């Protein structure tokens, strides 16, 4: 039976990360872009957990702790990002990121 190794975890994390980036780049809806960001964060969290399982000395939980932080951070980030989106919508009446290009100014 196939042994689940670090490479499999990393591969899944990489796929997750690629999916996140793809979503961020390709989707116009700002909420979808936020979802892409969540995917990337989760890919990173998965890497931490995987490295902690396979690479850390026994008894150390640094990876898990980092993952907990990432989840908290993602929650906070989602809250702030949604607040920004709400403001954006009030300003421009849309959540299309192509319309919100005032950052170049």
């Amino acid at each position, binding site marked *: 039976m196939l042994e689940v190794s670090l490479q499999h975890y990393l591969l899944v994390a990489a796929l997750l990360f690629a999916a996140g*980036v793809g979503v*961020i*780049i*390709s989707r116009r809806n700002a909420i979808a*872009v936020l979802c892409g960001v969540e995917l990337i964060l989760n890919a990173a969290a998965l890497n931490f957990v995987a490295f902690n399982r396979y690479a850390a000395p026994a008894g150390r939980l640094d990876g898990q702790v980092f993952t907990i932080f990432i989840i908290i951070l993602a929650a906070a980030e989602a809250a702030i990002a949604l607040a920004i989106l709400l403001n954006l919508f009030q300003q421009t009446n849309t959540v299309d*990121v*192509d319309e*919100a*290009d*005032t*950052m*170049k*100014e």
Partner: protein
Amino acid sequence: MQTPDTIIIALLIVALPLAAWTIGFLHAAVRRRLPSGQDWISTCAVGGSLTLSLYLLFSQVMAGPSGMQAVTHSWRWFAIGSGDHAFVLNFDVLVDNLTVAMFCVVNIVAFLVHVYSRSYMHGEDRYPRFFLHLSLFTFSMLGLLVTSNLMMLFIFWELVGVCSYFLIGFFILKKSAGDAAKKAFVVNRIGDACFMAGIFMIGGLLAKQWPGQDVLSFQRIWESVAMLGHGNGPWVGHETEVAVAGVLVFMGCMTKSAQFPLHVWLPDAMEGPTPVSALIHAATMVAAGVYMIVRMFPLMAGKGYVSGDFLDSPALWVIAIVGGITALFSGTIALVQTDLKKGLAYSTCSQLGYMVMAVGVGSISAGMFHLFTHAFFKACLFLGSGSVIHAVHSQEMKDMGGLRAKMPITYTTFLISCLAIAGTPLFSGFLSKEAVLGQAAAFGEHHGSLIGWVPFALAAATAFLTAFYMFRLLFLTFHGKPGNQHKFEHAHESPAAMSMPLVVLAVLAVIAGGIALPAGLDFGTSHWFQDRVNDQVLVQDTMGATPAFAGMQAHMVHRAEPLPNANEAVTSFHHHAHHVHMPVMLMSLCAVVIGIAGAWLLFVRRRGHDLVASIPPLAKFRVVLSNLYYVDWVYCQRLVPTVKDIADLAKAFDKGVIDATVNYVARFACDIAWFAGRVDAIVVDGAVNGSGALMMGLGQFCRSFVNGKIQDYVKYTVWGLGVLMIWAVLALG
């Protein structure tokens, strides 16, 4: 009398007519018209000058056996530059016997002409202006006499020239008068240009010896000549230049004194009012040329001047020959003139030729003596002709004739003057003409070859002609039957204001010769005039103790014996002069008698019979004479067109070569400029604009990445990450 007093009086003589002119000029400037009493102002001024001149004559020149001691003074006028390269001009004043004598002549004639003109010009337009010009002329002429600086003399020379121009063209509404004035002015420019060149040559040569000093004073020039005679000074090795300068200076005299071939202006100058002809174109201004070469005589004589052996000097030869030719040439033309004034004008030319020739053959005394006597009788003749013209309102002698009975005073004075100019004994002209002829004959005898007799031959032939043509004029005007009955009936003697000057001049024409008579009746030992106007008195005594003049040999041929210190050249000349004296006198008497008799025969006895026409060669010659030897024709038809052709050629050269070169160079410069402009626009501006555009494009390119779209930023990040990973794989892998 103290020296400063003499100078002051001399300057006063010069200044009085200037004052009269200034009064008129200022009046005209302020009131916009000349003072109506200008005639009185001018006449009084010249009268004052005359009085002072006579005072100087009697108190100074009459005093000693050789007249007055020359007095000089010098004022600095200006200096251009500084140090050794400065050009300095002084107003040098020299008052000696000659100056005072000339003062007297000029002032006597000028005064009488002023008096005469008040009547003659009465009622003419611009009457006050006439006197204004006369005053300016008198001032200029007197200034010319008083200065002893060649440059100052030239300035006054030009002033008398411009006065002559004003007065010839006085009748401005007559075209011929304007033309004659222009002709006189233009012809005189030729001589003046040469005169100026001569002055520059002299100044240039002398400036080496006396750098930064006034080198154009007579004294400097005389001293240089004397030094040359001793073999030192600034002119050693420059004898040719000195001779050329002498001839150039003489060219000035040739135009002013109307010498052939530059005489053409003088007969035309008769377009001016007759008193002007008498004063300027007979008695005084035209004599200025002779006066000038007398003052410049040492220059003309050159190296031999001090030793008294100067009779072969090239400049003097030129002067003698030109004078002789002029005398004969003008004398022949005078034979056929039908215009009374023109006849007199050619006679003036001829007599001026006499004076010039006298200087050329080495006697300034004879030249000046003839100038003085001529001034009186020629002024008398001209004023007499004016009186006739006033009476018959015509200058043509065909309108005259038989006027003897109607105008007794004019006739008598005219006759006396004719006798004087012809050289009849007991009249002044006899003595002066005999002095000239005697000198010319002595020159021939001394020279010893045929060519030496040329001046005498010309002068002797002229002596005969003079008697002939003068009496022709006299007979045609006053004798015979009236040519125009209507005009004859209206003719009358002129008023006293015109006839009195005639009488005075006629008296002077008789007695003026007396100044050359032996003093104290001791014949042959001393002559009043020649003792006062000769080489020794005029130059050596003026120069005083200048060492270069020590031992100078003076030609004083009027003395029975040569001076005790005379060397061989002078003694020999002296001997020759006395040798030829008596034959010349007899010959000149014969010439006068034959001339007068011939004129009487042709124009009184056989009047109306045209003898000349019956002899073909003479008739042909008369045509030549009537055409004035074709001199004017050659000038107008040949010389002037040639000059114009040359001018056209020069113009063509100017346009075709010089202008073309300039234009070509300009065009070339334009082309280069155009090319440079293109290079600038394309290459230089192109580089600048190109780099600007490049930067702009780069900026635009960079800007395009920053489009404000967050997704694009992420995209770039991913690409960058991809590139980094590829690099990492390739480099580290």
